[in-house]
């Protein structure tokens, strides 16, 4: 337990569902990003998977929509302490995208329209735990939340769920991304409170 701040009681708490440590519930959907919101027209949008040998796998918007779709219903956790429970998405599983991709890579670096990057172990993109999501709450994903499509990796802090995702580069060595070079944790497990380097 931390140092008690006299007179602080916190919000009245009912029996709340399990939240990762240090998180509070929010009903709205805060926006955090480092710069202006990119606007990406669907007819030029593409998603590119690049393997460690340089092989490329590309999907246009229509091709992505033609793949099997999933509808994850997940909790999301932002490093700035808010969590949002039971959010509804639609997108394509990374398992589907990685199916048939020949790789021995252990790491992935997601990159976005606008230049943002973030790193993840490749295993964390597999096993039904990650999607390229294009629909939120029944409608097209708004640009400020990463539309037309963002990565959705709900078991990690939300900065790993790269907005405006453009592709994923598979790597044999881990390479930190944008926030990770700015002091944030390389992995970012909310349940272990891996917020910043060294946590």
């Amino acid at each position, binding site marked *: 337990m931390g140092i008690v701040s006299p007179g602080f009681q916190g919000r009245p708490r009912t029996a709340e569902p399990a939240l990762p440590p240090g998180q509070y519930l929010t009903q709205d959907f805060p926006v955090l990003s480092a*710069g*202006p*919101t990119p606007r990406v027209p669907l007819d030029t949008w593409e998603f590119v998977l690049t393997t460690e040998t340089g092989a490329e796998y590309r999907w246009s918007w229509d091709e992505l929509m033609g793949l099997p779709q999933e509808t994850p219903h997940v909790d999301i956790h932002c490093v700035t302490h808010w969590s949002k429970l039971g959010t509804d998405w639609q997108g394509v599983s990374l398992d589907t995208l990685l199916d048939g991709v020949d790789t021995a890579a252990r790491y992935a670096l997601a990159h976005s329209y606008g230049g943002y990057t973030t790193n993840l172990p490749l295993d964390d993109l597999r096993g039904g735990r990650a999607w390229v999501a294009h629909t939120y709450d029944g409608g097209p994903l708004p640009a400020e939340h990463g539309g037309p499509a963002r990565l959705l990796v709900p078991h990690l802090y939300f900065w790993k769920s790269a907005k405006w995702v453009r592709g994923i580069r598979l790597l044999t060595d881990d390479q930190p991304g944008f926030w990770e070079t700015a002091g944030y944790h390389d992995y970012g497990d909310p349940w272990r409170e891996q917020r910043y380097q060294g946590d």
Partner: protein
Amino acid sequence: MAVPTTGDRVAAPLTWRVARLVERRVETPTAQTLMLEVPGWPGHRPGQHVDIRLTAADGYQAARSYSLAAPAEGERIAVTVQRVPDGEVSPYLTDTYAEGDPVEVRGPIGGWFVWRADETAPVLLVGGGSGVVPLMAMVRARREAGNRAPFRLIYSVRTPDDVFYAEELRRRTRDDQGLDVAYVYTRAAPEGWRGEPHRIGLADVNTHGWPPDLEPLCYVCGPTGFVEAVADLLVGLGHPTRRVKTERFGPTG
């Protein structure tokens, strides 16, 4: 100074430090600046923030982020907190938290929305409401470093009574050479202000900002809708997205 920044990575864990309130300054009827004494504070850059954590007697904890409002004075840091109605943390900090009481503080955090005191490029700061806080840290750091980069601040507030640091901003625009401050009032303008209250628009950014060919650094901070609107205006005016840094406070509204 071991501050995490883009480019030079540090692995030292950011620890929670016990901070105590040493002074409180009223900025507006709903906002206050808290001066905290943080033993072991390593220093920070303007634009960085801290996480402040409160613990209740039953062990319950709540943490929120607050921008550092000024360069550190030794082990003293300043944050400015806007009271959010129905908020969990901000009303405690503005209403209950008393001199000498502890909170826990972790930081400095953030290596992107920062201004370096050796930069010479012109700077455009655009703040909405409490979003002025990290921008004020830049204005203050500029003066402290004797930096002469031309600075322009566009500050959007509801009414003249909502202006943070009002007196200091008046003094600095007079004394800090190369600093200009323009206000945009959204609800009620002061006597003699030209124009009607309005939300910030293209004309404000165009008139009080820098043209893109001067290659200014732009920092935009405030509520999400405000930041979205201003960042879009700047990009529309031709500012390269890499030179428009944003920090979004608070809810989607």
